[in-house]
Each structure stands twice: as structure tokens, then as C-alpha cells.
């Protein structure tokens, strides 16, 4: 796959990424500027609105709350910002390492497709996931993840877009295409005409390792014989699995590079130069939006309301509860390891101890969730499993509310998409 280096330049206080393709890619993907937390500044108007072209205008991002009292937010957050950058870099490095180990196990599966090698590849997928889930606390602001998150962790997915499904043995790119399968080619069509037409990332790999989860008692049960070379469309399936695995490893390595210390022009360099409260704003919004929107509504609420196994985050492997545990752990790591707890405590001890308590409560409630998650989705509305799930949602809502107070304490705007 082509190596790309995205360099970041500050325009006003927005970071604008430009991607340079270092080697010609067979089908480079145009990545539109993407920033879920673009906040328009009040004072700096006019940025981009007068620029030519069909770009739609570049907004200015600002998380900084203004105060008439110049001393209101006179504190030094340098230790927090540095600790955060170190944490984010380490997390992506861990995620990339785990994915790399998984890639080795997948190579072994392709080398000798047997029940044992398939089981080892699945185990490597499961082992690699926690480190990635913990990085989700760094989403939802204009970080480098936003441009490629859709390639890395999109769900729910339309399995039949990739490979055979029950009732349709000839479905998908694997059974229908004639084009050479490459990571770049698959990325170019990822979610192109429908958000569920996912072609790449963790969940595509998960589906290729497990197959559909048609069982109420266990995960998917794809046979290892699907990977015997030369039979049926197996060669396309083999190429597909290898291509998306390599792409995932590459994507995670590129994120690690964006946060690595002393890499000229990478995101970390710019992040560390931001106005301190702009950087804090990104940190707190990432945590709050994960807790109060993506995790609570999208992953818990929607699944509970549909009762559909398709809404299970990691539905093929039945490892969704592990995802939940580590999403919360990622939030907690920012709070503790990026030293936010200490900074908040120094400014408002009550808020800091409230958030400490909310994290403990959410850990208990997420820990009490039924496993596997699809069994919870099938459970009766009045069941104890459902009650526990509702309590978990409430604990995440409370945590998001607590993080909004953290925002007020630090003088940054916290915007959660659906409230």
C-alpha cells in the first residue's frame, strides 16, 4: 500500500490536513476535510467563506470559552497536554502492534488453513481489540483518526457486500468481482454508496474470520476450508483478508506516526503548539462524546431498542462486552494518565471527585452487563439483563454530564452531538 504522510497546518486555530501520497497509489482516496467538532468562531468570521472552489468553506475550530475575567483560566496545562500526547502515541503504538501480531496469525492461517490456525487468528483478533478500543477516547475532534476512522472501525456492516451469507452463496465482492483485490481499491469503495457497505477495517476482518453469527449460543462459525487455496472463490477471499489486514496495520501505523514525538509536520507537533485550552477542549470532547453519544446511544441504546444482533458492535465474534469495557477504560486513562484529574482537582475539587465517582460507577455498571451482548438484546424488556443495560446507559449519561462540568472548570466548550 502507498505510504502517505499527512501534514498539518494551522489556519486560524483550525488544523487543516493535506495528504501527500509518497508513492503512487493505484486508487488514492480523496479525503474531504472532516471534523465532527468544527466549531465556528464568533470573532474570526470570514475564514474560508470567500475562498474559491467548491470546498464549502473551511470552518474555524474553537473550544475555548471566553471570559471577561482575564485571570479566570490562568493555569498551566502543559503537563496535561504532554502527557496526553504521550498516552495517545503509546495507545496507537499498542494498537498497531496488536494488529501486526494478528497479521502474523492471519498469514499462518493462509499458509495452513486448519481449524487450529483459524482459532489462533481469531484469538489474535480478540487480543488486539482492547488496545484499539481504548484509542476511541481520542476521536470526535479533528484529529488524524477522523479521516480514516471509517476505514478502520465501521459497523454495522452489510456482510453480503463482501462475501457469502446465509441464503445467498454468491454474494459480495469475493464471489462476484473480477478486479484485483487491493487494500487501496477496497478503501476506495468503502461505504461509497451506502454507509453499511463497509469493505475494510476490524469488522470486515472479524466477518472474514468468524462468518455470520447465526447462533444464539456462540459466535460465527466460518470453516477454515474457506481459505484453502485454489478452491471456488477462496483465492479472492484469501487476497481480501490479506489486503484488509495489511491496510488496517498500515492505517494504525500511520496514526502512530501522526502522534510520534519529533516527527516534523505531524499532528502531535501542531497539537502541542495549540492554545492550551484548544488542546484541552479536544481532550475533554473526545471523552465526553464517546461516553454520552457513541457509546451510550449508538452502541447501547440503539441495540437495545432494535433487539437486533446486527446492532451488536462486534457481532461476529460475540466480543462486544470486551469493546464496552475498553471504551470506558480509554476514557479513564485520559482522566488519570493525562493528569486531567489532578488539574481539575486543583481548580474544583468537588468536580474532580464527582468524576472519580462517576468513573467507578460506570465501571461497575459496564462490568455488570450481560455477556454475550446478543443474549441481552434477545432478553425480555423486563429482564434483569435489560435492567442492567439501562443502568449502564444511565451511568454513561451521568459521566458525560460530569465531563461537561470538567469543561466548564477548564474553560472549554463541550458539545455532545445529540443533546
Amino acid at each position, binding site marked *: 500500500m502507498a505510504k502517505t504522510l499527512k501534514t498539518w497546518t494551522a489556519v486560524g486555530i483550525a488544523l487543516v490536513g493535506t495528504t501527500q501520497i509518497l508513492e503512487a497509489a493505484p486508487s488514492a482516496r480523496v479525503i474531504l*476535510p472532516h471534523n465532527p*467538532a468544527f466549531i465556528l468562531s464568533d470573532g474570526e468570521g*470570514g475564514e*474560508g467563506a*470567500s475562498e474559491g472552489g467548491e470546498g464549502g468553506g473551511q470552518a474555524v475550530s474553537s473550544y475555548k470559552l471566553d471570559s471577561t475575567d482575564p485571570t479566570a483560566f490562568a493555569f498551566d496545562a502543559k503537563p496535561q497536554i504532554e502527557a496526553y500526547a504521550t498516552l495517545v502515541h503509546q495507545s496507537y503504538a499498542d494498537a498497531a502492534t496488536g494488529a501486526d501480531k494478528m497479521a502474523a496469525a492471519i498469514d499462518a492461517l493462509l499458509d495452513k488453513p486448519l481449524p487450529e490456525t483459524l482459532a489462533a487468528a481469531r484469538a489474535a483478533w480478540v487480543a488486539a481489540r482492547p488496545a484499539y478500543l481504548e484509542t476511541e477516547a481520542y476521536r470526535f475532534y479533528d484529529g488524524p483518526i477522523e479521516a480514516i476512522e471509517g476505514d478502520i472501525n465501521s459497523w454495522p456492516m452489510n456482510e453480503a457486500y463482501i462475501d457469502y451469507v446465509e441464503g445467498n452463496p454468491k454474494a459480495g465482492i469475493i464471489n462476484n468481482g473480477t478486479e484485483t483485490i487491493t487494500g487501496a481499491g477496497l478503501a476506495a469503495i468503502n461505504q461509497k*454508496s451506502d454507509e453499511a457497505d463497509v469493505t475494510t477495517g476490524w469488522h470486515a476482518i472479524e466477518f472474514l474470520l468468524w462468518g455470520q453469527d447465526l447462533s444464539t449460543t456462540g459466535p460465527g462459525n466460518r470453516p477454515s476450508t474457506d481459505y484453502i487455496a485454489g478452491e471456488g472463490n477462496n483465492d479472492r477471499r484469501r487476497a481480501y483478508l490479506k489486503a484488509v489486514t495489511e491496510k488496517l496495520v498500515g492505517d494504525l501505523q500511520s496514526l502512530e506516526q501522526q502522534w510520534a514525538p519529533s516527527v516534523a509536520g505531524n499532528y502531535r507537533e501542531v497539537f502541542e503548539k495549540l492554545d492550551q485550552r484548544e488542546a484541552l477542549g479536544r481532550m475533554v470532547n473526545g471523552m465526553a462524546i464517546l461516553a454520552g453519544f457513541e457509546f451510550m446511544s449508538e452502541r447501547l441504546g440503539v441495540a437495545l*431498542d432494535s*433487539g437486533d444482533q446486527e446492532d451488536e458492535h462486534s457481532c461476529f465474534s460475540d466480543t462486544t462486552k470486551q469493546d464496552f469495557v475498553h471504551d470506558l477504560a480509554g476514557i479513564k486513562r485520559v482522566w488519570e494518565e493525562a493528569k486531567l484529574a489532578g488539574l481539575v482537582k486543583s481548580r474544583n475539587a468537588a468536580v474532580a471527585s464527582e468524576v472519580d465517582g462517576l468513573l467507578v460507577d460506570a465501571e461497575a455498571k459496564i462490568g455488570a452487563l450481560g455477556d454475550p451482548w446478543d443474549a441481552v438484546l434477545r432478553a425480555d424488556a423486563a429482564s434483569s439483563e435489560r435492567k442492567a443495560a439501562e443502568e449502564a446507559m444511565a451511568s454513561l449519561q451521568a459521566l458525560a454530564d460530569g465531563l461537561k462540568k470538567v469543561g466548564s472548570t477548564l474553560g472549554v466548550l463541550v458539545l455532545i452531538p*445529540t*443533546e
Partner: protein
Amino acid sequence: MPVTAALGGATTRPIAAQNAFSFAAPNAPREHQRIFSFGNRLFNTNWVMAPASVKAFDGLGPLFNRVSCSGCHTKDGRGQPPADGHGPMESMLLRISVPGEGPHGGPRPVPGYGDQLSERSNHDVATEGVARITYTEIAGYYGDGEAFSLRKPDYAIEQPGYGPLPADLLISPRVAPQMIGLGLLEAVPDATLTALADPGDADGDGISGRTNRVWNAETQAPAIGRFGWKAGQPTLRNQNAGAALGDIGLTSSLRSAENCDAAQAACAAQFNGGAPELTDVFLDKLTLYSATLSVPAQRGADSPAVMEGAALFRGLGCSSCHMPTLQSGGHPLPEVSHQTFHPYTDLLLHDMGEGLADNRPDFAASGLEWRTPPLWGLGLVPQVNGHGFLLHDGRARGFAEAILWHGGEAETAREAFRNTSKDQRDALIAFLKSL
């Protein structure tokens, strides 16, 4: 930020990004968050053919255009014509009819086909055909001598699946519009629209907006139309039920009969996904979702070019129909009630001239009339959907072409634009891009 930059009143969010159309109104009550999220899930659901293991989400087809709402309204945004000019199309459809009145005064369905071309179908059922679009470039000049070219589309239907299409077939092409701010538009009182209408041009300004008179399938009574390119639907619930049936093939309490014409036996014989396939609980959640998507704020409202463009927008006469300000009244959803907002539409039908005409009547709307579309969010379509195609069928390749296609009641305003200076045209477009 000037107050008018809050295009969606209290539902506005200052966001300009690829998912700018996908947020909930920030003033929504907390108890709506979960309903909204589930509505979003429904909007993104890929419906499957019945019977399927996923009982709640089966019932696709038998005839359909796409398998999900977001298939056409990707990222809650705007559709476009197919790049290669032929179907099956991704985010656009063709309404069809024959001259005369159909049920409740609506379009008269084409015998053997119905009122919309289904380019896709379940196994064992023939598709109705595929669209073919051919463009002819038409050269023109601005008043200052600068050349422009407009592309005029012609529509045909190939591979008709249910017998020859009639010689008097009427085709109305429609792209999927962006989904923002719809609840605000629903909450504008009927009395406001009636008061804005000037069907006989009593005030002599050359602008004679009319309300459409359509059928409300929920109340089983006539009503003022306000949604759709020709204002063919009175409420969002009607609009959603209509789209679920016409575009995806899902029955609902409002539209209980499968989307099969009397002559389509294989279609009628298909197993269905329950009666109805889209339950009222789902339809209600989908409707809350479609009513409460936040409107992105205007960008750079106080920059000189945008301010100049805003003045020209009024001065050239655009604002006669693209009304800058409307007010909503009471509505069951508090987040859209009693707001002042800036959609740049009067929600009325206007004769837009022969150049834009689909020549297909739709209830009271003539073949020359279109409902003024809101302009909010148009500047973000390139960012959200990666294209800049405008007008009801995406024929315009950007704002200038869209303006130049205006005729009929808008001819005076179009000529004013065509004959103004390049700097002023650029300023007007800078204003439109800021919306």
C-alpha cells in the same frame, strides 16, 4: 456571528464538516436523544427481503430504488445524477405518470407500472426498467460577454419490464434533498403559507406563489402540501411513509398496499415482511429523526463578500421566493416550535419556465411549477457529499448554472444576475456558499 447566521434558529449548530447534516438539534429535550439515535439507525438500515432472520427489518421490495434511506440521502445529504448517465441510479429517481388525474387528484399512475420507476427488485420479480440521461450543452453569455454552458438533460427509460411504455408517458426526475431543518418547515403554520401565496399576482410583482393541495393519508383528507420537489406531501410522516413505500417497498399504516401495480402479478405474490412492514413505532421514531436534524450555521456571515452577496440576493429579487426568514408556530416537538429561522424558501409553488419544467402535474402543481427549495446547507454539500450538483435533477454544476436555469417567474431575477458584473456574481455565489 450575526443573528441571521443561526439559519435553523435554536436548532442551529456551528458545524461545517463532512457530517454537518447528521447532528440532532442541540435544543432537543434529553428524552429525544435515544429516539433520535434509533431513528438514525432506521435511516441507515439496509432493509432485506422477507422472510429474513432479522424480523424487524425485513420487507424490502418487491420493487424498490434503494435498500435504505441513507442510500439516497447519504450522510443525511443530497443526491446526484449518475456520472455515466444511466441507471440503476444511486441517489435519484424518476416519477412517472400519464396525463389526467389519479387517486385523490394526484398523478395518474402508468398502467402496469405505477407512479415511480423502480430500477431494482427482489429475485423473481422483474425490474421496471432503467433510466437513461443524455445531456446537451447549451451555450450562453453573461451581459459582460463571458461565456457559460448549461447542460440540458433528456430522460428515457430503457428495458421496460412490464410492457411497452405509453407514448404520452410523463417523467419527473428527482434527486434526494438534504434532510436538515425539516421539522421547522413542518411547523410553519398553514395560515402563513396561505397568507404568503399570491396566486393571481394581486400585488403585481410578477411573483404568484401558490400552495399545493394534496392528500393526507393519515387524516384521509385534503391538505396543503409542503414537502417534496413539487410540495406533494403535507407532513413528514406522510413523506416518510411515501418514501418508505415508493423508494424501498415498505408498507406502513399510511400506505398499506404493497408497491405493486395491478398488472404486476409476481410482485403481488411476494412474501411480505409483516403488515405493516414499517410499524407505527418505527415510523414515529423515523419521523422524529427526520424532523430534528440540526441546521448548520452560516459560515463567514460577516465577511465583506458574503455581506455584499446577501444584499444582492435581496436586490436582484432572489428573496421574493427564497424568503430569508420564516417563523414556526406550535408543534408537538418543542425543539422546532416557535422559532425564527432562515431557510430561504416560501414553501410555495412557482412557475419556473419551460427550461426547468418536468411537464408532469402533481396534484395542483402544474408541469411548469416547482416548490421553492430551501437554500440552507447547500454550501456544505460539496463537503458532505463530494459534489456540487444542484436543482431538482442535479443538472446544474454549481450555483451559477443553477441560477441561470431559472425562468418563468424568476426570469427577471435571473436576467439581473446574468447582466451584473463578475464581482457581483462572485459575491452572490460567496453568499450562497456561506449558507
